[in-house]
C-alpha cells in the first residue's frame, strides 16, 4: 500500500514542478524567448485538454459498461481536425482579426457586439462548466481515496480546488490582455498532456503485455457483446455521440480557449490536424483492453471508472498506480485550470466589467482604474468559477449522477453551434435569430437533460419526470410531446438542437439585421477576403484623441497605452503627438481593447467616448428635426431673398426718380442761369455803351435806358417767379384763403391788362355768370394767375384779329373759368409738358418768357384747392380751364 505521505509528496512535488515550469516559461516568454513553447507540438498538446479525467478514468468505465461506444467521443474531434481547413482555420482567423477572447465574445461580436448574447452565452457556459469542474474534483478525490483509503473528501477536494484556482490566477491573469497567450499555462498543460498519455499507455502496455500476454490474448474468451455493447453498436446514439463530441471540440469554452485564443500561428492547425487525432488515438488504444482486464481481474463490485488505477494496484504495481494517479491528476487539473481561465474571462468581460464600469461611470479621471478592475474581476471570477465547481461537488455529494455530466455539458455547449456556424457562414444570420435559438436551445436542454439528470431530486421532482409538468403527459421531460422510446441523450439533442436551429433560422430570416450586425456578419463570413485594415465603420460621431487616450490608459495601463498611441501616431506620420482619431485608428484601438474586455464591452466604451455608437432612434429623430429646421430656414431665406429683390427693385426705381429729379434740377438751374443771363447781358452791353457818352446821341441814350429799365423789370419778375416757385415747392408760400367774388377778380384782371389790350388791339369777350359767384381763394394770387393766363393769350396770339374769350360757369360747388383765344392754341403734343418749368409753347418765339408762368400758376391754383388744366374743345381748339372750389358768400354780401 502506498503511504499517504509518499502520495502527497509526489503530488506536491508534481504540482511544484508545474508551478516552476509555468513560472520559468512565463518569464522566458516575457523576455522574448518564447521559442519552443510556440511550436505546433505544444499547441497540439494543449488542445489535449479535451481529455479530462472523464477520459482518463471515464473512458475505461464507459468501455466496461457499453463497449466500443466510448470511441465516438474521440472520433468527432478527429473528424473536425481532419476538416480543419473548412472550419477551424476560419475560426482562428476570425479570432485573430477581431481579437476574440472567448466563445461568448465571438458570438456576441458577430451579432452586432450584442451584450445580451454575450451574457446569455456566458451563463450557459458557466452552467455547463460548473458540474464538469465538480466532476474533476470528484475524480481526483476518488482516485486519492482508492489509493490511501478513507480521507476527508471535502477537505481534499477543497485543497485541490484552491490549488488549481491559485495556479489559474497566477499564470492565467498575469497580464490584463486576455488575448495574449498564457505561455506558462500552455507549457504546464503540455507537460500534463504528456504525463496523462504516458500514464495511460503505460497502464495499457502493462495490462496487455504484462498481464494478458499479448493483444490477441486480451480478447480471448470475451463475449462480443462486451466489446460491441448490447444490440446494434452503430445506432442513433452512436451518431449523436459522434456529432456531440465534434461539436464539443469547437464549442467547449476551454477548447475554444486553447484552439482559437491561445493559437499563435494558423499553420499550427495543419500539424494539429493529424497530431491531435493521433494523440486521441493513443489515448483510446488501450481503453478497451484495460476495461476487459478490469472486468476479468477485479471483483465484480469494483468501480469501472477507477480501473486504470485499481488494476495496477491490485496487481501489485504501486509505481504504475502512482503514475496513473498522476495521469488522472494531470487530466483533471489541466481541465479545471483552462476551463476556469476561459469561463472567468467570459464572466469577467461580459458580466463583472460592464457592471463595474456602469457603477464607476463618471470617475473617468482615475487612470489605471479599469486595469485594476479588470485584473481583479478576472481573478475573482476564476476563484468564483472553481468555487462554484467545489460547491456543486459538495452539494451533489459525489453522487454517480456526476459521471453523466460530461455528455450533459456537451449537449449544453452544443447549443452554441447553430449561432456559431450560422454566424461565420451565413450573412443573413441576425442577432434576434441567435438570441432566440440560444434561448430556446438552453431552455429545452435544461428541461430535457440537465434537470432530469438529478433524478428527480432537484427542481424537477420525480413525479414531473414520470408524468410531465403539471401532470401533462406531453410535457414529460424525457418524452417531450410524445417523442418516446429514444435514448434520453438522443431525445434531448433532437429537441434542444433541433428547436435551437429552427428558431435561429426562422427568426433570422424574419428579422432585420442592425447595421453593425450586418457589417460584422460580412467581416466574419468573408474573413478571408478582408484585409484586417479594410474594415471601416460608417458611423457618425466625433472622436477626441485625448478621451480615447484616457480610456486606453484606464484599461491597458499608462505605459502600454502610451506605447500604443505612440505607435499609432507614428503610423500616421505624426510622432510625438496624439494620433489623429481616424476611423482606422479607432477600429485598431477598439480591437486592442477588445482583447482585454471583449468586443461588446470595448465597442460600448469606445462608442461612449468617441460618440460613435450606432445611430439610435433619438439620434435619428434629432437628425430628422435638424433637417426640418434646415428646410424651414432655407424657405425663410428664399422668402427673404424675394423680399430683397422687391426692395432692390423699389430702390432702383426710387433711385431712377432721384436721378430724374437731379436731372430736372440741373436742367432747371441751367435754365435759370440762361434766363437770368439774357437780360443781364442786355443790361451790361447797353450800360457799357452809355459809359462812353461821346458816341451816343441823346435819343439813343433814352432808348438804351428804357431797354435797361425793361430788362431790369423782367429780371425782377423772373427772380420773383423763381422765388415763388421755390416757396411753392417748399410749401411755405403764405397764402391766406377767403371768399372771393370771381367775376370781380376777372374784371380787375382784364382792366389791369388794358394797356396791353389796347396796344395789341385785342378784343376781349366775356361770358360770365349773371350772378356773382364766390370762390375760396386768395384774391391777389387769383388776380395774378388770371393776368398770367390772359396776357399769355394776348402775347402769343398770332391772329390778324385777335379775340380772347373769358367764360365762367358754375357747377355745383365748382367754378370753371375758361380762357380761350383764336390765336392757334396749344398743340396736343405740347399739352403734357406745357405746365413744366421753363416750358414754352410753339408760339413762344415771339416773346422770350421764362416759361415759369404756367407752372407757377398751376402750383398756386392747386394750393388753393383748385386746378389749372389745358382742355380741348370738340373742334380741337385748346383752352385753359381754371377750376376753383366755390365758397360761402361772406355776411352781408350774400346772393
Amino acid at each position: 500500500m502506498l503511504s499517504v505521505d509518499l502520495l502527497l509528496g509526489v503530488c506536491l512535488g508534481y504540482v511544484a514542478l508545474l508551478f516552476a515550469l509555468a513560472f520559468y516559461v512565463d518569464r522566458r516568454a516575457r523576455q522574448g524567448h518564447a521559442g519552443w513553447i510556440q511550436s505546433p507540438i505544444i499547441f497540439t498538446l494543449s488542445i489535449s485538454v479535451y481529455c479530462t479525467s472523464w477520459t482518463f478514468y471515464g473512458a475505461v468505465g464507459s468501455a466496461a459498461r457499453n463497449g466500443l461506444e466510448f470511441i465516438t467521443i474521440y472520433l468527432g474531434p478527429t473528424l473536425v481536425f481532419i476538416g480543419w481547413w473548412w472550419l477551424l482555420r476560419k475560426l482562428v482567423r476570425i479570432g485573430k482579426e477581431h481579437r476574440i477572447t472567448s466563445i461568448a465574445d465571438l458570438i456576441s461580436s458577430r451579432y452586432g457586439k450584442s451584450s445580451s448574447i454575450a451574457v446569455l452565452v456566458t451563463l450557459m457556459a458557466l452552467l455547463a462548466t460548473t458540474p464538469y469542474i465538480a466532476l474533476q474534483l470528484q475524480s481526483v478525490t476518488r482516485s486519492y481515496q482508492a489509493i490511501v483509503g478513507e480521507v476527508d473528501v471535502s477537505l481534499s477536494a477543497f485543497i485541490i480546488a484552491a490549488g488549481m484556482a491559485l495556479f489559474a490566477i497566477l499564470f492565467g491573469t498575469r497580464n490584463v490582455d486576455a488575448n495574449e497567450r498564457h505561455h506558462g499555462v500552455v507549457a504546464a498543460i503540455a507537460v500534463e498532456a504528456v504525463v496523462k498519455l504516458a500514464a495511460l499507455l503505460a497502464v495499457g502496455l502493462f495490462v496487455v503485455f504484462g498481464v494478458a500476454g499479448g493483444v490477441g490474448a486480451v480478447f480471448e474468451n470475451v463475449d462480443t457483446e462486451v466489446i460491441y455493447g448490447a444490440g446494434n453498436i452503430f445506432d442513433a446514439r452512436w451518431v449523436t455521440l459522434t456529432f456531440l463530441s465534434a461539436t464539443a471540440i469547437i464549442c467547449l469554452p476551454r477548447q475554444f480557449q486553447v484552439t482559437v485564443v491561445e493559437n499563435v500561428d494558423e499553420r499550427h492547425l495543419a500539424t494539429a490536424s493529424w497530431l491531435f487525432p493521433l494523440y486521441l488515438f493513443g489515448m483510446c488504444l488501450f481503453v478497451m483492453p484495460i476495461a476487459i482486464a478490469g472486468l476479468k481481474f477485479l471483483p465484480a463490485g469494483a468501480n469501472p471508472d477507477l480501473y486504470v488505477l485499481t488494476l495496477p494496484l491490485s496487481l501489485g504495481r504501486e509505481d504504475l498506480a502512482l503514475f496513473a494517479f498522476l495521469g488522472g491528476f494531470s487530466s483533471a487539473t489541466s481541465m479545471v485550470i483552462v476551463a476556469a481561465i476561459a469561463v472567468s474571462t467570459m464572466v469577467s468581460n461580459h458580466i463583472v466589467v460592464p457592471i463595474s464600469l456602469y457603477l464607476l461611470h463618471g470617475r473617468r479621471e482615475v487612470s489605471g482604474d479599469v486595469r485594476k478592475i479588470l485584473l481583479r474581476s478576472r481573478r475573482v471570477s476564476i476563484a468564483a468559477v472553481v468555487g462554484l465547481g467545489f460547491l456543486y461537488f459538495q452539494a451533489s455529494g459525489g453522487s454517480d449522477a456526476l459521471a453523466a455530466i460530461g455528455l450533459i455539458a456537451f449537449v449544453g455547449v452544443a447549443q452554441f453551434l447553430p449561432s456559431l456556424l450560422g454566424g461565420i457562414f451565413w450573412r443573413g444570420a441576425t442577432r434576434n435569430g441567435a438570441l432566440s435559438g440560444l434561448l430556446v436551445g438552453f431552455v429545452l436542454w435544461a428541461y430535457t437533460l440537465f434537470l432530469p439528470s438529478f433524478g428527480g431530486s432537484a427542481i424537477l421532482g420525480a413525479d414531473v419526470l414520470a408524468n410531465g409538468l403539471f401532470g401533462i403527459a406531453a410535457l414529460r421531460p424525457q418524452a417531450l410531446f410524445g417523442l418516446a422510446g429514444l435514448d434520453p441523450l438522443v431525445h434531448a439533442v433532437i429537441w434542444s438542437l433541433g428547436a435551437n436551429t429552427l428558431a435561429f433560422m426562422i427568426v433570422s430570416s424574419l428579422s432585420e439585421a442592425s447595421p453593425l450586425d450586418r457589417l460584422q456578419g460580412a467581416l466574419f463570413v468573408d474573413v478571408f477576403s478582408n484585409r484586417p485594415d479594410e474594415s471601416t465603420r460608417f458611423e457618425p460621431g466625433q472622436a477626441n484623441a485625448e478621451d480615447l487616450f484616457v480610456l486606453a490608459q484606464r484599461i491597458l495601463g499608462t505605459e502600454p497605452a502610451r506605447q500604443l498611441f505612440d505607435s499609432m501616431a507614428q503610423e500616421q506620420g505624426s510622432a510625438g503627438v496624439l494620433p489623429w482619431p481616424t476611423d482606422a485608428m479607432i477600429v485598431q484601438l477598439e480591437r486592442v481593447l477588445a482583447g482585454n474586455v471583449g468586443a461588446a464591452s470595448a465597442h460600448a466604451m469606445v462608442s461612449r467616448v468617441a460618440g460613435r455608437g450606432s445611430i439610435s432612434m433619438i439620434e435619428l429623430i434629432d437628425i430628422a428635426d435638424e433637417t426640418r429646421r434646415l428646410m424651414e430656414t432655407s424657405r425663410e431665406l428664399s422668402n427673404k431673398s424675394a423680399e430683397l429683390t422687391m426692395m432692390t427693385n423699389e430702390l432702383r426705381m426710387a433711385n431712377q426718380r432721384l436721378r430724374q429729379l437731379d436731372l430736372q434740377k440741373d436742367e432747371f438751374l441751367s435754365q435759370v442761369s440762361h434766363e437770368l443771363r439774357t437780360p443781364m447781358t442786355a443790361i451790361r452791353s447797353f450800360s457799357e455803351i452809355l459809359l462812353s457818352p461821346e458816341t451816343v446821341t441823346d435819343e439813343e441814350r433814352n432808348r438804351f435806358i428804357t431797354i435797361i429799365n425793361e430788362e431790369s423789370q423782367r429780371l425782377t419778375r423772373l427772380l420773383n417767379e423763381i422765388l415763388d416757385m421755390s416757396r411753392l415747392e417748399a410749401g411755405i408760400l403764405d397764402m391766406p384763403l377767403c371768399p372771393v367774388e370771381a367775376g370781380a377778380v376777372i374784371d380787375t384782371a382784364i382792366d389791369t391788362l388794358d394797356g396791353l389790350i389796347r396796344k395789341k388791339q385785342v378784343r376781349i369777350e366775356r361770358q360770365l355768370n349773371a350772378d356773382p359767384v364766390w370762390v375760396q381763394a386768395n384774391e391777389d394770387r387769383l388776380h395774378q394767375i388770371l393776368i398770367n393766363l390772359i396776357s399769355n393769350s394776348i402775347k402769343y396770339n398770332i391772329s390778324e384779329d385777335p379775340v380772347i374769350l373769358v367764360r365762367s360757369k358754375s357747377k355745383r360747388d365748382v367754378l370753371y373759368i375758361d380762357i380761350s383765344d383764336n390765336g392757334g392754341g396749344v398743340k396736343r403734343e405740347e399739352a403734357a409738358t406745357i405746365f413744366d418749368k421753363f416750358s414754352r409753347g410753339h408760339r413762344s418765339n415771339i416773346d422770350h418768357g421764362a416759361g415759369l408762368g404756367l407752372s407757377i400758376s398751376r402750383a398756386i391754383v392747386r394750393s388753393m384747392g383748385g386746378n389749372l388744366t389745358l382742355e380741348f374743345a370738340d373742334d380741337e381748339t385748346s383752352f385753359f380751364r381754371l377750376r376753383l372750389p366755390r365758397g360761402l358768400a361772406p355776411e352781408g354780401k350774400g346772393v
Partner: protein
Amino acid sequence: MNDESRNSNRPFSDRKSNDRSLVLLIVGCLLLTPPLAGIFQLDFRILGIPFTGFYLFAVWGALIVGAALLSRQQLNNSVWVNQEDAAAEEDVDNSA
C-alpha cells in the same frame, strides 16, 4: 488578396489538396457512422481482435495518415497570413 482568389491563380494541384481534405473528411464521416459503418459490424476476429474494433481503429489510423499527408501539402502550397506580408514586401522590393 485572399486565399481563395490566390488559389484560383495557383497551380491546379494546390486546390486539389484542399479538395482532397474535404473528400477525406466526407469519407471519414461515412465510414465511421451508420449506415455504412453497420456493414462492418461483423462477428469475427483478426489477430484475436474483434473485427469492428479493428475496423474502427484502422479507419481512424488511415484518416490520421491521410490528414498528415494532406496537411503537409496544404502547408507548402497555401498562402498564410505571415507569409503574405513577406510576399508583399518582396513584391515591393522587386518593383523598386
